[in-house]
């Protein structure tokens, strides 16, 4: 699908590409893919610069490779992972099949302030992390967009739900989001494809929650960017299970499966893999980006590309890193950083706190197929009733399943009857885990670490991030409410779970180039355009002024499509 133009540009000396593009998009992940689609479809000759390698679905997707064809039967090549991906391999999706979609920690180092661990999980390839993302897709509401103003925290969002609602419609109609309409004010419905089904144990918990929590708490099937019916040339999901290994039927949404092919179809896309953006060159007279400086990952040649408009979609922290690395005398602390907010207010979601229990009953029922989606309990704290312990709230995610053969490891049985018994499904279990909103805080920030460089000599980031009191209080509440809901469903052997995951591990990092009304306190305007640089847009998670508690990718998609529309209108008016 991509024109591979690697290797051009000679060796070592900086050369300029003669072609000038209408637009350059940095990154080909979930937002870069959308920018590529929107800009090319609106007539712009667009260059997408992707730092990683090309992906060929027919060769690289491995979702149908069974355990017995894997050398370590799915346990992973532990020594190699410990050596090369000690950070990445802490993510569930970075396994024996999919570790190739995650970066090498050796080539891509970062540093942290002592006592403040941070997990940065990254993917560098065409498609970025949209290949192995979690696919959960939820709209924000005005409860979220008004939160900063109401609480007097950070800066007010310059947009409201009404500004983004049509763009949610727009991206959902293309991407395909399955889910159940509930009409909740705190979690607006999407334009849904039919929902996936709850399994038996999940239904038991759903009914018990409805009975015991007076309608304040509701369990619904996860809203996911997975097709439950054929949609725009992509096939319905066939329930093989491990989406993070790829999907040859293109049933879940990713750049590779949906937006990049659409962009390619216009004939206006040039996709250049192995193109690591080093920095942006600023023209202080024109107040624009004059060039995008790239290091070819293979030849290490330095090349400069030019376009009328530049979209940074490299992921929250990578986009910030590029700007921090593009300082000028006017912007000594990073390009487009007259506010001093660039790299600050880094947020994530606080998770891994909840409960699991055995849910008795339905022993004569099993789940056939592997539904690649879980259940969701929309936020109920600080919606109708106020929580005394913390601001904002959290949603719960989880799933029901019958225990498998693994339960036999620590049993003492052996022999024919043992084998027969553990070959049959074990009891039904349900787990529920919170995903909590994280407050924006200036003291959570990243900076350039000039003493540590990546494999291409580019300075890396140093992280200074920690959970605040509000998040810690929320984390405590999650285990209690999860256990309450399972107890209401007759759950037995309830286990409270609380892993003290560091920030970053929800892989929802956002906020480091926030939107706002005032150029003195924000980096981007209400259309994701940099206040300081006329032709620069950032449409990845960096733009977020607060974090909500829902998975953010759908909102990034909508903001990207909206920003592209704005940019093209500005160009047509000659303002860019």
């Amino acid at each position: 699908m991509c024109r591979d133009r690697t290797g051009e540009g000679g060796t070592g000396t900086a050369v300029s590409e003669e072609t000038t593009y209408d637009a350059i998009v940095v990154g080909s992940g979930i937002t870069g893919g959308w920018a590529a689609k929107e800009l090319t479809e609106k007539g712009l000759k667009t260059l997408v610069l992707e730092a990683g390698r090309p992906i060929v679905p027919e060769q690289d997707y491995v979702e149908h490779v069974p355990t017995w064809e894997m050398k370590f039967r799915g346990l992973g090549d532990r020594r190699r992972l410990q050596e090369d991906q000690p950070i990445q391999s802490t993510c569930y999706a970075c396994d024996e099949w999919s570790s190739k979609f995650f970066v090498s920690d050796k080539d891509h180092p970062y540093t942290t302030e002592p006592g403040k661990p941070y997990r940065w999980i990254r993917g560098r390839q065409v498609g970025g992390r949209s290949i192995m993302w979690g696919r959960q897709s939820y709209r924000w509401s005005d409860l979220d967009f008004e939160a900063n103003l109401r609480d007097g925290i950070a800066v007010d969002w310059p947009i409201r739900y009404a500004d983004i609602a049509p763009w949610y419609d727009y991206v959902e109609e293309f991407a395909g989001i399955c889910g159940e309409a509930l009409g909740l004010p705190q979690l607006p419905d999407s334009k849904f494809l039919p929902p996936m089904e709850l399994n038996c144990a999940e239904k038991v918990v759903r009914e018990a929650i409805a009975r015991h929590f007076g309608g304040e708490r509701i369990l619904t099937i996860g809203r996911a960017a997975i097709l439950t019916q054929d949609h725009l040339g992509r096939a319905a999901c066939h329930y093989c299970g491990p989406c993070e290994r790829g999907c040859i039927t293109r049933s879940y949404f990713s750049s590779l499966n949906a937006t990049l092919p659409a962009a390619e179809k216009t004939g206006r896309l040039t996709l250049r893999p192995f193109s690591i953006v080093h920095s942006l060159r600023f023209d202080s007279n024109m107040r624009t980006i004059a060039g995008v400086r790239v290091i070819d990952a293979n030849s290490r040649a330095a090349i400069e590309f030019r376009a009328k408009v530049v979209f940074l979609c490299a992921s929250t922290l990578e986009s910030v890193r590029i700007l921090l690395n593009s300082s000028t005398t006017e912007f000594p602390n990073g390009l487009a950083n007259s506010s001093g907010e660039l790299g600050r207010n880094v947020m994530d979601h606080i998770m891994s706190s909840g409960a699991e229990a055995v849910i008795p009953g339905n022993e004569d029922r099993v789940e056939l197929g592997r539904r690649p989606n879980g259940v969701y309990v929309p936020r109920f704290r600080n919606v109708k009733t106020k929580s005394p312990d913390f601001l904002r709230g959290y949603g719960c995610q989880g799933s029901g399943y019958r225990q498998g053969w693994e339960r036999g490891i620590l049993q003492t049985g052996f022999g024919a009857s043992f084998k027969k018994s553990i070959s049959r499904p074990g009891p039904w279990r349900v787990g529920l885990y919170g995903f909590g909103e994280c407050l924006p805080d200036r003291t959570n920030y990243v900076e350039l670490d000039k003493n540590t460089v990546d494999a291409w000599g580019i300075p890396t980031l140093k992280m200074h991030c920690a959970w605040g009191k509000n998040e810690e209080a929320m984390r405590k509440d999650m285990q209690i409410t999860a256990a309450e809901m399972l107890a209401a469903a007759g759950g037995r052997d309830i286990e409270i779970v609380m892993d003290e995951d560091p920030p970053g591990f929800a892989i929802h990092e956002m906020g480091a180039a926030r939107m706002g009304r005032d150029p003195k306190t924000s980096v981007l305007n209400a259309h994701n355009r940099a206040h300081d640089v006329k032709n620069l847009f950032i449409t990845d998670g960096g733009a977020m002024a607060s974090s909500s508690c829902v998975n953010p990718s759908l909102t990034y998609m909508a903001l990207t499509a909206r920003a592209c529309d704005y940019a093209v209108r500005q160009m047509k008016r000659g303002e860019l």
Partner: protein
Amino acid sequence: MDRREALRLLAAGASIPLFPGHLLAALREARAMVSQQSAPRTLNPHQFATVRTMAELILPKTDTPGATDVATAEFIDLMLTEWYDPVERDRFLSGLAAVDTRTQSLFSADFTAASLAQQSEILIELGEKMTEEAQRARDRAFAGNGTLAESPEGFYPMLRRLTLTSYYTSEQGATDELHFQIIPDRHDECAAIEPEKEAPEPR
């Protein structure tokens, strides 16, 4: 060619349930097969035979294949050679040696030479010890606010983990025993199955 054709159709948006049978079979065809192992690299012939015997006792051949049929001892040798660190490997090997020491002291024979009843007695004893150790680890964890994961796994739980993993992730174990399908024929979140007629779940 069939596999290529199958992939082409899928990429073009064909629906799996409507897929021609021979193409579906081609899609499931094995690829990138793991190279066949030659001789064991960590376990000596006696250790290898002991591991194989113990694994077969845990998951014997019945109307379905057993641990030996799916090359469990070979998998364990691979894991000891290329996966575990030296400390874990040595813990496994010394636990394995202790099995012979115990069998010798009780029955004056190596484990592999003992009778089936004697071998079973040894496994029962190892199981009891495993349960006690797990209990002690739990007590320690709660006393010291540690986590269970911090306790290193002993020989017998390691052996059981490797045996069960090897079996249920093998082609025969997964398909014959668990009825695993890479591409499921259908999905049903609450499908009825034959009720279990045998004795309840052992502890």
